[in-house]
């Protein structure tokens, strides 16, 4: 993309930039240089103050489960029943909320208010942020 905006305008699309940043195994968030807000999902403009001066910073990766649900799939004829699948909303310590899931964690072990930490999964260009129970980084 040619740079036609202010000096601070991004030169790479924010989704692509997010994928490149999290490739190091850490969760990265945008931070607004003008109002200081941490931002997710990635954008080109701050939804709090309309600044385009957004930079990237590694986040703590820590958060708290805000809400949760579990899909209980119905077995289809001739197929083995699919396992339940839990989905969470996590409030990151930096402020933003994100949808995610906790791979391998039983639905009954996922509670609203529990502390979780982020894990970057997947292949280059299609990384995914999942969470595991836990207060602190090791």
């Amino acid at each position, binding site marked *: 993309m040619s740079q036609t905006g202010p000096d601070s305008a991004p030169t790479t699309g924010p989704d692509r930039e997010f994928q490149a940043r999290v490739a190091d195994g850490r969760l990265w968030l945008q931070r607004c240089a003008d109002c200081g807000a941490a931002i997710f999902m990635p954008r080109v403009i701050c939804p709090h103050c309309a600044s385009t001066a957004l930079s990237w910073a590694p986040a703590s990766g820590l958060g708290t489960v805000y809400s*949760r*649900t579990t*899909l209980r799939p119905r077995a289809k004829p001739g197929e083995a029943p699919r396992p339940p699948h839990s989905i969470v909303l996590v409030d990151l310590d930096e402020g933003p909320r994100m949808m995610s*899931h906790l791979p391998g964690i039983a639905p009954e072990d996922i509670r*609203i208010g529990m502390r979780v930490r982020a894990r970057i999964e997947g292949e280059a260009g299609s990384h*995914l942020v999942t969470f595991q129970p836990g207060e602190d980084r090791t």
Partner: protein
Amino acid sequence: MTAKLRGKAAIVGTGTAGLDEAPGFTAMDIQALAVRAALDEAGLSLADVDGIFCANMSHTFPAISTIEYLGLDPRWIDGTNTGGSSFVAHALSATMALEAGLCDVALICYGATMRSGAGRMVPPAEQPVYELPHRPRYPMTAYALAAARHMAQFGTTRAQLAEVAVAARAWARLNPDAFERDPLTVEEVLASRMVMEPLSLRDCCLLTDGAGAVVMTRADRARDLAQKPAYFLGGGVASYNRAISEMPDLTSTAARDSGARAFAMAGLGQNDIDILQLYDAFTINVILFLEDLGFCAKGEGGAFVSGGRIAPGGALPVNTNGGGLSFCHPGMYGVFTLIEAARQLRQGAGARQVDKADTVLCHGNGITLSHQATAIFGTEDTL
């Protein structure tokens, strides 16, 4: 002042078609039948329609396709799509267009064949890209997350959610057009198959075919038409987010703002409303909207709906047609709130007619608690 629009237009005709199943028909087919029924009811013809308001999820250009199918030549065309709330928002836009003279006869219409056609919700083309990889099932996941949060924060119970489904069914049993008319108890709702915790099958709306249409004119013309007009008294819309993960507080919807705007325009308060039509895609919706529209305090919706308060014979009639939970739900339910409002206000709702029906509040919800639209209608006495 937005109060300029109060009482300036009215619903003068309503029509439905293809409710439950319409095998072999397209969305445009049954929509046309609903439009014809609405115009017949009003004593108007297709040639009189010069304003169209239309949204759906099956067509990229639903207003244009509707114009072509019906052979219309409208002066005003509004295809604003905010999800299932669209038609409640259209009532406000239509009143504005009518009052401005941009059109004289406004048609608000919708049709879908979700049950006999695809057999599932048609997903919108544009989906939240940072949510999809976690395998949510829209729209259910979003409402389940809201319900779970409401339960954790306020102690709302599944039995209280079930009260909403039971009340809707009790109303549906009085509506010959309703899809589900068998008796339903709280125990049966609780025992129904768990789909998306904490929502069981009976916490979720139906998936039916169906079309609905509403015709509006300016108030002066409405008085000369066949039906008692349902006057538009006030309306408002509000939206903060598309994705559920972007919603600031899952227990507090933008209905707070859309409702406040509608009440302000109407010059009415909660105690002035006789009947509510609340888009009940899931049981939690009714609890959220009763709170956010100011009929009870935040967090008290579960207790409020208990003991039959919103059921037939209760203090506050809600979803008198049986709602999306038991009457019909062809994907975008909003237009049916308008239809039921007009029929109640003209004392034309049959066995489910509410005695005191001078004001009705319609509330539409779009996408995943993403857009809220409120419209208040009243009889001539309320002008």
